[in-house]
């Protein structure tokens, strides 16, 4: 048995076999061979296995997604068995006495080049299909495995270096019980995704992919951050017990689903959820969310090969608004750039992407993309309680420009005879220190603030949140952060506006008491944290915490702040 330790990113305990999602090494080396028959047989065997594999994928895709989506694998199957592909490969092996892998690479790249050079976009794209198929065959010749997460058909724990948005989009929620990654922290994409899927995850284990092999038994303890590899029966029994205890605790929390979110002394706050897609709504409702505090619209733009149309976006926004039945839904406009890229929207390579051309900065330049989203939002506005939020606002000028575009599109729609809700609150994410400092000025023009702590902390501490070597600077309890948060909340209240928070901090058990004391109105978090936070809230006294918050602002270090909160909670 081996034990790894990482960051507990999503709570719960999962026990299952490992599925390693690791990109294999497909490097081809040209070799001279002597036994032509053996080499050709090797090729035939690889083609046969590839055929079986594609048939299975085709069938599974057809069952899960329909015949339309599965059609492409029919074409791939024809390529694998294509006489014009196979004959030249065999010829090459016989004539040049080269290895099968090399022959495949030569012949397939000839076809790839041919298709890429055609004066026809459709055919150019087919080059990608040929590459894809060749990769599959090559993997079988080399005896390595190409992972195909969409084909997972048994309960597994996914093991990866990191999980990208497109990886997670392919994961089948019914079979993936948990995951563990080499890199990442509580706020990395993989961690956020695990919480939204409500599956246990441990990230940043550094060596998960080196230690764990396919099919090994793995326990992921998303409560402690431990990952156990090849556990003995006794350990498995222990963790099964722990999993049971956790689900019992969850059942206890579940009783609070329809309870109001009030402190022990009767102060009400809103506990909302962060979501990425309309499918996440089910979890929001099940966990008693009082609203959506952050709808990350970028997922609509990911995992596809063109921008989503106005109608596609409208359908998604409408589904979310209707799904929340009149409860507030804060939609964040496109936040792309930084660590989030789109294959069809080439962005220049930047030295500091987190400080670069992203989010509202990109949208104000690509107004075509931005206007489409604004129109879709405005059209959906009549189906619920929509609030629009602009991300990465650094200056008032940016907010004014974005709002002017919104007003223009609203006027356009009204002129076209399309209905738009009369009252739509328009607010901003506060994640750049300049905006927090200027919050009093912003408060006169925006309808609300939502503090994005993940980025606010990263920018205030000048610490890249993807860089593990500076992860010690990710300090939510640092008095510097608390003071900025206080400025934002006070500024909002002075103008009769509300202030929320949609970063990880909003669901943190030691941050919640401080934030309540500072007067935060809305706490938006992973849906699975809502009930736990509601239970916590019921034990907190706001009047006492106001005093505690004032003391916290005067503490010297993050540790000092944490100490006084823990002391209070223990009491």
């Amino acid at each position: 048995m081996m034990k790894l330790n990482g960051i507990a990113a999503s709570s719960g305990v999962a026990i299952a076999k490992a599925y390693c999602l690791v990109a294999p090494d497909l490097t081809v080396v040209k070799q001279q061979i002597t036994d032509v028959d053996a080499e050709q047989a090797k090729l035939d065997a690889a083609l046969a296995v590839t055929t079986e594999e594609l048939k299975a994928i085709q069938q599974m895709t057809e069952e899960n997604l329909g015949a339309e989506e599965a059609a492409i694998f029919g074409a791939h199957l024809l390529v694998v068995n294509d006489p014009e592909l196979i004959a030249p490969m065999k010829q090459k092996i016989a004539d040049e006495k080269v290895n099968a892998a090399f022959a495949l690479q030569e012949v397939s790249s000839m076809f790839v080049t041919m298709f890429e050079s055609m004066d026809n976009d459709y055919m150019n794209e087919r080059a990608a299909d040929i590459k894809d198929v060749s990769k599959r065959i090559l993997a079988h010749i080399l005896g390595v495995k190409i992972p195909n997460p969409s084909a997972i058909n048994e309960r597994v724990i996914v093991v990866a270096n990191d999980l990208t948005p497109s990886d997670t989009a392919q994961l089948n929620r019914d079979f993936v019980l948990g995951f563990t990654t080499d890199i990442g922290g509580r706020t990395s994409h993989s961690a956020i995704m695990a919480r939204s899927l409500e599956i246990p995850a441990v990230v940043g284990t550094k060596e998960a992919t080196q230690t764990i092999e396919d099919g090994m038994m793995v326990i992921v303890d998303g409560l402690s951050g431990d990952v156990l590899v090849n556990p003995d029966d006794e350990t498995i029994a222990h963790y099964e017990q722990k999993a049971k205890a956790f689900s019992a605790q969850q059942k206890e929390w579940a009783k609070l689903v329809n309870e109001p979110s009030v402190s022990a002394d009767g102060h009400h706050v809103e506990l909302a959820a962060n979501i990425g897609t309309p499918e996440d709504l089910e979890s929001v409702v099940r966990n008693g969310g009082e609203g959506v505090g952050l709808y990350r619209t970028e997922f609509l733009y990911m995992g596809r090969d063109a921008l989503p149309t106005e109608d596609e976006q409208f359908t998604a926004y409408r589904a979310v608004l209707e799904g929340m039945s009149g409860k507030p839904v804060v939609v964040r406009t496109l936040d792309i750039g930084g660590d989030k890229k789109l294959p069809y929207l080439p962005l220049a390579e930047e030295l500091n992407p987190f400080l670069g051309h992203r989010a509202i900065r990109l949208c104000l330049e690509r107004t075509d993309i931005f206007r489409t989203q604004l129109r879709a939002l405005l059209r959906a506005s009549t189906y619920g309680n929509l609030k629009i939020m602009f991300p990465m606002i650094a200056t008032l000028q940016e907010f004014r420009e974005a709002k002017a575009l919104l007003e223009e599109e609203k006027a356009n729609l009204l002129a076209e005879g399309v209905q738009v809700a009369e009252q739509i609150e328009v607010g901003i994410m506060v994640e750049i220190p300049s905006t927090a400092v200027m919050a009093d000025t912003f408060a006169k023009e925006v309808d609300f603030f939502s503090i994005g702590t993940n980025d606010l902390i990263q920018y205030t501490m000048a610490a890249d949140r993807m860089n593990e070597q500076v992860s010690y600077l990710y300090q939510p309890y640092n008095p510097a952060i608390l003071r900025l948060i206080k400025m934002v909340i006070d500024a909002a209240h002075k103008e009769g506006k509300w202030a929320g928070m949609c970063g990880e901090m909003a669901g943190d058990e030691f941050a919640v008491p401080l934030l309540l004391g500072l007067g935060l109105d809305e706490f938006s978090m992973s849906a699975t944290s809502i009930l736990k936070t509601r239970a916590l809230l019921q034990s907190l006294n706001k009047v006492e915490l106001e005093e505690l918050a004032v003391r916290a602002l005067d503490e010297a270090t993050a540790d000092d702040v944490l100490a006084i909160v823990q002391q209070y909670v223990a009491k």
Partner: protein
Amino acid sequence: MKSQQFKVVDAQGIHARPASQLVSNSTAFASTIALVTDNKEANVKSILSVMSLALRQGDDFTLRVEGADEEQAFTAISTILVEMGIAQ
């Protein structure tokens, strides 16, 4: 040998789906089946070959079948071309 002239009518040309149909329905025949244009010739039993013609709407080509079962093969392939709205 049997042959006949056709013109592509499918707005998308001979793309992956019709090409797949042609290929899947050719492999069972012993005859050589080819699509011939002015400067190229494609083996209908090969999807890569058919696709590499990149035939577009309005392009002319000849279907040429030669071999023991050429009658049946010709009927089968020309029927697919017409009935799937690929060419006429």
